[in-house]
């Protein structure tokens, strides 16, 4: 869905070996999974369901527990439900809903399109080598509202804290785009390649 090439290029740039999986069966052969995403949820979840990828992902991620990274839409699709353009049941890997950003304050516009400093849990190995309050690039109109705080890996202020990253067992996902966040984004991707959850 959307921006595969940038993610592929970024992973290769930091030394990873990456293939684009066109068929659900392709997931069987690989060691770790990335779900990128640029676009809107309805098309995304529809395609995942229709192609058989949903079943395959559930198996590889939840049962075989392969390290998995979701980016932007790839993170939002992991929620239970998204309200973008209707009501869409998503992968339900996280007990969360995806709802529209509202901007009560002048200066905080919707869509949120900007670099923002993130506040993250420094014990998470995916953030190794990244200073607290480092800036990453966000471009989104909807955000993920987690039911339980202990899955929150990072937040940013818009102006109150909203989800910037989530973590549960072998699944890590970011609202921001590491493949578009220059050096520190590449660092995060490198960390993902080395991650042993």
């Amino acid at each position, binding site marked *: 869905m*959307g*921006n*595969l*090439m*940038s993610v592929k*290029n*970024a992973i290769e*740039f930091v030394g990873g070996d990456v293939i684009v999986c066109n068929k659900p069966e392709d997931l069987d052969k690989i060691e770790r999974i990335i779900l990128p995403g*640029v*676009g*809107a949820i309805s*098309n995304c979840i529809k395609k995942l369901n229709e192609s058989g990828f949903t079943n395959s992902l559930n198996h590889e991620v939840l049962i075989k527990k392969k390290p998995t990274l979701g980016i932007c*839409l790839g993170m939002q699709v992991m929620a239970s439900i998204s309200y*973008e*353009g209707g009501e869409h049941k998503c992968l339900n890997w996280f007990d969360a809903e995806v709802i529209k950003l509202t*901007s009560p304050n002048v*200066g*905080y*516009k*919707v*869509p*949120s*399109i*900007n*670099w*923002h400093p993130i506040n993250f849990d420094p014990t998470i190995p995916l953030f190794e080598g990244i200073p607290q309050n*480092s*800036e990453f*690039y966000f*471009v*989104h*109109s*909807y955000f993920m509202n987690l039911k339980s705080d202990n899955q929150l890996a990072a937040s940013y*202020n*818009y*102006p109150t804290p909203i989800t910037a990253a989530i973590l549960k067992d072998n699944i890590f996902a970011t609202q921001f*785009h590491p*493949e*578009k*966040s*220059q050096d520190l*984004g*590449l660092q995060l991707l490198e960390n993902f390649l080395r991650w042993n959850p």
Partner: protein
Amino acid sequence: MEPLKPKKRLIPKLLLSNRDNNLVVVITKYFDKRILIGDPLSQSKIFQDQSADELIFLNIGNTGIKSLCEVIARVSEEIFMPLTVGGGVRSDNDFRQLLKYGADKISINTVAVKNPKFITEMAYKYGAQCVVVSIDYRIDEEGKPLVYIENGKTKTNLDPVSWAKQAEEFGAGELLICCINQDGSKDGLELEVLKKITEVVKIPVIGSGGCGMAIHFVDGFISANCDAVCAGTFFAHRDQNLIQTRSQIFNSGVNIRMQN
């Protein structure tokens, strides 16, 4: 402590034109004269090294989407920063192709004016944050601003402020506003229309056209309230260094990204 407001963005503009069957970066003056600047990837690397916030690529070469995709694909191999891409985008397939090859946001201009529903369709399918409506305008001899389409060649009777508001209502996620009278002039942005636009819309606005000094950016951010300023000519020549410009803007009291 009250959180700082979101930062203002600095965005180099890379206009692409056709030279010997290749798309190369050019700068223009009043949307006319084209001066060759260099290769898109080389230029992009300079901006990435100087931590530009985003890049905007606009194909004014009328060479079709495929050639634009090729440039973006090549740039995406080494440039890991936000890319807004436009120029001749007319269809859903154009959107899909450009996003696939590395664009984060797609800019549409002529097609949005001719068929505003296209804005809504693309925003629905790809998300409003992907859809940038680009508005070019000229101020005529009587001081009246009018929207121009087809790369500044065709006059419409649209007022840019009203059209900006409508584009938002149709679903645009961001606006890229450019004054043709100021383009390439180095005399500064046209601030009046820009200010009116930022007052009537709630979505982010990128101002463009005419920056020649750091103070012009500051005017765009403070007087006109733009969320971002986009500049082509200003950044094209090496003596206008992004890092120095950033410092000057910051020292004038504008909250912009200072990390390298």
